[in-house]
């Protein structure tokens, strides 16, 4: 694991030395801050809408940070040819990939922590109450969802040559899953024969990112979800993330680098 952690450290260092991360962070903080501090007619519902918009913004920012960070990892290693001195060391290709995955996931975790802490501080200053459990579960499940997305983008970075095409495909896929993933089985019910089998196949094959979207816990100040469900969702994310990383390792293992 030493080698994996060494690569992880480099990925995190790269992220906080790049300017784009800070731009997105400051932008999100500014918008969240402004939206969180305005009050319209002292209406509680409006406050909820604002919370919803702020959380949506955090979700979009996290998707952008995660996908753009991962999508450039392997292509930039090949393009800048830093992969050669790296693989000339006693490190396996699997360790490089796993280190990249872990680095991106932890770096995204740090970014999420910044977002949620800031959002939490703004909300507490307005509502004078803080439901730690709701925030904890919403933030950590969000982070687990990013594990799936990072695995998916890492696999894509070995298949698609250009980071931009990989990032676009991953962003479209993630948005599509988040928006229509949960409705696919209902769509399948309206179909017959091969079409139904195909839609059911897609429904069961895709990683259901929408199950990690528990923003409503924060928006409506609902009590936290039961721990067994939380643990199952976390396990689901780790299994899917692991599957994507394993597939990436299998592709990268025999790939000629020249």
């Amino acid at each position, binding site marked *: 694991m030493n080698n994996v952690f060494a690569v992880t450290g480099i990925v995190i260092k790269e992220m906080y030395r790049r300017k784009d991360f800070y731009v997105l962070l400051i932008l999100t903080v500014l918008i969240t801050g402004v939206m969180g501090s305005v009050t319209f007619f002292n209406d509680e519902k409006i406050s909820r809408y604002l919370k919803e918009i702020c959380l949506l913004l955090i979700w979009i920012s996290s998707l952008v940070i995660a996908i753009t960070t991962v999508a450039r990892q392997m292509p930039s290693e090949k393009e800048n040819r830093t992969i050669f001195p790296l693989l000339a060391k006693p490190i396996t290709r699997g360790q490089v990939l796993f280190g990249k995955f872990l680095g991106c996931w932890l770096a995204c975790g740090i970014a999420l922590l910044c977002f949620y802490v800031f959002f939490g501080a703004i909300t507490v200053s307005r509502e004078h109450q803080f439901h730690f459990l709701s925030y904890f579960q919403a933030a950590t499940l969000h982070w687990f969802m990013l594990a799936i997305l990072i695995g998916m983008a890492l696999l894509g970075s070995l298949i698609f040559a250009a980071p931009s095409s990989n990032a676009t495909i991953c962003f479209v896929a993630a948005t599509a899953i988040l928006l229509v993933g949960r409705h696919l089985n209902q769509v399948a019910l309206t179909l017959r024969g091969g079409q139904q089998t195909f839609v059911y196949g897609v429904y069961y094959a895709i990683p259901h990112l929408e199950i990690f979207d528990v923003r409503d816990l924060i928006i409506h100040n609902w009590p936290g979800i039961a721990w067994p469900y939380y643990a199952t969702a976390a396990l689901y994310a780790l299994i899917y993330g692991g599957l994507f990383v394993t597939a990436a390792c299998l592709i990268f293992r025999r790939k*000629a680098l020249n």
Partner: protein
Amino acid sequence: MNAVLRIDNLRVEYRSKEVGQRTKVAVNGLTLSVSCGEVFGFLGPNGAGKTTTMNVLLGFVNATSGSARIFGVDVRETIARQRLGYLPELTYYYKFLTAEELLRFYAKLFRIPRAERESRIDAVLKLVELEAASKRPIKTYSKGMQQRVGLAQALINNPDLLILDEPTSGLDPIGRMKVREIIQRLKSEGRTVFFSSHELGEVETVCDRVAILNQGELKVEGSVDDLVHQHQCNLEQLFLKVIGYRAV
């Protein structure tokens, strides 16, 4: 003497991008061995298969057939690279890191103990004369300085075998002299150096043995003195003869 590096009947084929040609042979039936403590020059014109052979030795490319072993270990095994240092032809390092951070990262990959790591970093930075710039990001370095970072990372694990791909390419005369001095110093310490170069005068000065490759096949191999004596010409003339160069 023990063979540090051994290549047996190596063949490497690529998928060809040319129409009507499915594969292209980059290296064909290459057999050679490098003994402990030798400085071995790997020569050939561009496209002869030198870098492909080095890519096989470093595990970047898989051989189509044949085998390559370093310290008796198959090059596909990660452990084969534990006692190896590699300097690529051009400098490719993480530009957002400082030289010290880069060396610390590579030292971790070699599992050099923490106490030894820092002294080793200081020693290689001193050797390549980069102590003053060690805390600056690599992106601020000149080309010569980046090449010296490359040399420092290749030496971080105190390697028994050093693979250098055209180590002096793009360097000024002082830089070349410095690289030559380092190779000679490694030789005097009993380390094995395997390097490719187009600087034949330099090869003649520092190498014990050379091999000349042309169109993926080994044409000549032997000690520099023997080859020069046997062919009654210098290394450059021999090289041109072997690759079939005809002056216009």
